[in-house]
């Protein structure tokens, strides 16, 4: 089976950069800050495949480049280098110019125009952030938050959008009678569920989850995770799950990558990463788990 997206050599540098950045940063040096020019190599030469219907975990300490990776793939930040190609089967019929005849993979999506990137994002991607303030307009009604996303994906009929919002909120266990309330009235767990409803509203192929349960109390965390697990099979999602919590990764992901100082130091089956970690940093991470 061919991967849905192929990521090759993805890099992100903050700062002007110098000829010694690459040699002076990374897991061996235990830093992503270049001592010579002060640039930060947030992601360096990250390559992986994401398949259909799979959940790929990304673990690592804060500052390892996990969230940068998500922001690059979600087209929020411009990559400094590297490629992202999508399989033809992703159904990009409205963007035929992305495919040259005969090839199963698109051109490098990171090189598209802002407009095309936005189209692609609206059609194929969903994201849930750790901080609901990033994903939701807190003063706008929950239904309105979802409708905004549907508008972006080309919906125009108000009644249908309202119906779809109600359906998604119900699916994520938000009482329908509260759909006209703004998320700022909700608890943290509810806000996170509204974010999930919003992320799923355009039926995305790819869902990015960035530390979605961090900061929620345990019983709420459990419910959100249960929901994500069920939604994955129901919506046929490919998910990139970023977390520093190995328990979350173990529950959701079959494969896992471990990041450290902007690099992927190890990747494998999740149970293998947890029970037979190869890299020094992964061993430390696993040994530190409560």
């Amino acid at each position, binding site marked *: *089976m061919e991967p849905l997206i192929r990521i090759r050599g993805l890099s992100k540098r903050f700062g002007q950069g110098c000829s010694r950045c690459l040699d002076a940063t990374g897991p061996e040096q235990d830093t992503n800050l270049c001592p010579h020019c002060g640039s930060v190599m947030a992601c360096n030469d990250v390559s992986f495949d994401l398949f259909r219907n*799979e959940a790929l975990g990304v673990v690592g300490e804060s500052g390892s480049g996990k969230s940068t990776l998500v922001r690059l793939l979600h087209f929020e930040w411009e990559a400094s280098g590297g490629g992202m190609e999508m399989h033809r089967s992703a159904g990009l019929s409205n963007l035929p110019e992305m495919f040259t005849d005969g090839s199963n993979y698109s051109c490098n999506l990171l090189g598209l125009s802002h407009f095309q990137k936005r189209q692609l994002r609206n059609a194929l991607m969903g994201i849930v952030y750790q901080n609901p303030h990033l994903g939701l307009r807190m003063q706008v009604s929950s239904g309105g938050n979802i409708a905004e996303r549907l508008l972006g994906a080309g919906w125009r009929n108000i009644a249908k959008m309202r119906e779809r919002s109600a359906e998604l909120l119900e699916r994520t266990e938000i009482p329908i009678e509260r759909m006209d309330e703004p998320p700022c009235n909700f608890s943290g767990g509810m806000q996170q569920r509204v974010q999930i409803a919003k992320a799923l509203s355009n039926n995305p192929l790819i869902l990015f989850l960035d530390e979605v349960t961090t900061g929620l109390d345990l019983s709420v965390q459990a419910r959100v995770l249960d929901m994500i697990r069920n939604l994955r099979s129901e919506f046929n999602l490919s998910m990139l799950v970023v977390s520093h919590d190995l328990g979350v990764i173990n*529950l959701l992901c079959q494969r896992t990558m471990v990041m450290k100082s902007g690099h992927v130091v190890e990747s494998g*089956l999740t149970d*293998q990463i947890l029970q*037979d970690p190869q890299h020094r940093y992964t*061993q*430390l991470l696993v040994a530190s788990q409560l």
Partner: protein
Amino acid sequence: MITVDNLSKSFTLHILNEKKIVACRDISFHVPPGGFLGLSGPSGVGKSTVLKCLYRTYLASSGAIRYNSAAYGSVDLATLPDRAVIDIRYKEMGYVSQFLKVIPRVSALAVIMEPILARNGVSRDAARKRAIGLLERLRIPSHLFDAYPVTFSGGEQQRINIARAVSWKPRLLLLDEPTASLDKDSVGVVLEILKELREEGTTMIGIFHDTKLLESVTDSVYQVNNIVRHGFVAG
């Protein structure tokens, strides 16, 4: 069906000054289709390590694990790409661990129905029927069907574990002390279920610490200690 050739596994513990632990060494055996190989030896000799290498929970340090897959043909499980291993686990290879490790907040019945539903393409009703049949056979009281297995006794958990692994009739089944915490009657039921599964063609490799049991259920035994070897010879 599966041929293990000079399999060795050692762990290098970077955080303990590169300490190296050899878990098993020079393991070679062959299991024909439909065969049942027992792994025997004192505890700590590396029996579970061998099974975990076959299941790819551990990465083999050296050697080859030739498996004749229905979907992929002859493959080396030691080096096969992750995605293919996931696929083989999903379609062909089952594993009964020493302890039940299931997702929290999922009922016993759902735990067993899940692999049947996901793999065998049967209706919810049929999956439910098969799951209930297994639970009843394994003498799990019916009032526990909708309870969470984490709250069960050790023996009940282990029976859930077995029911989950056999429910979808894998082609290759790895068993790590499946009967360790069971009473005599339950052991009898489990052996009966394994026997039926074999009659349907499942190949098995198992660890049983009761030697009498080991010899009675398996059709060859491999001694994991590098001295005595009998049973099927590699190749």
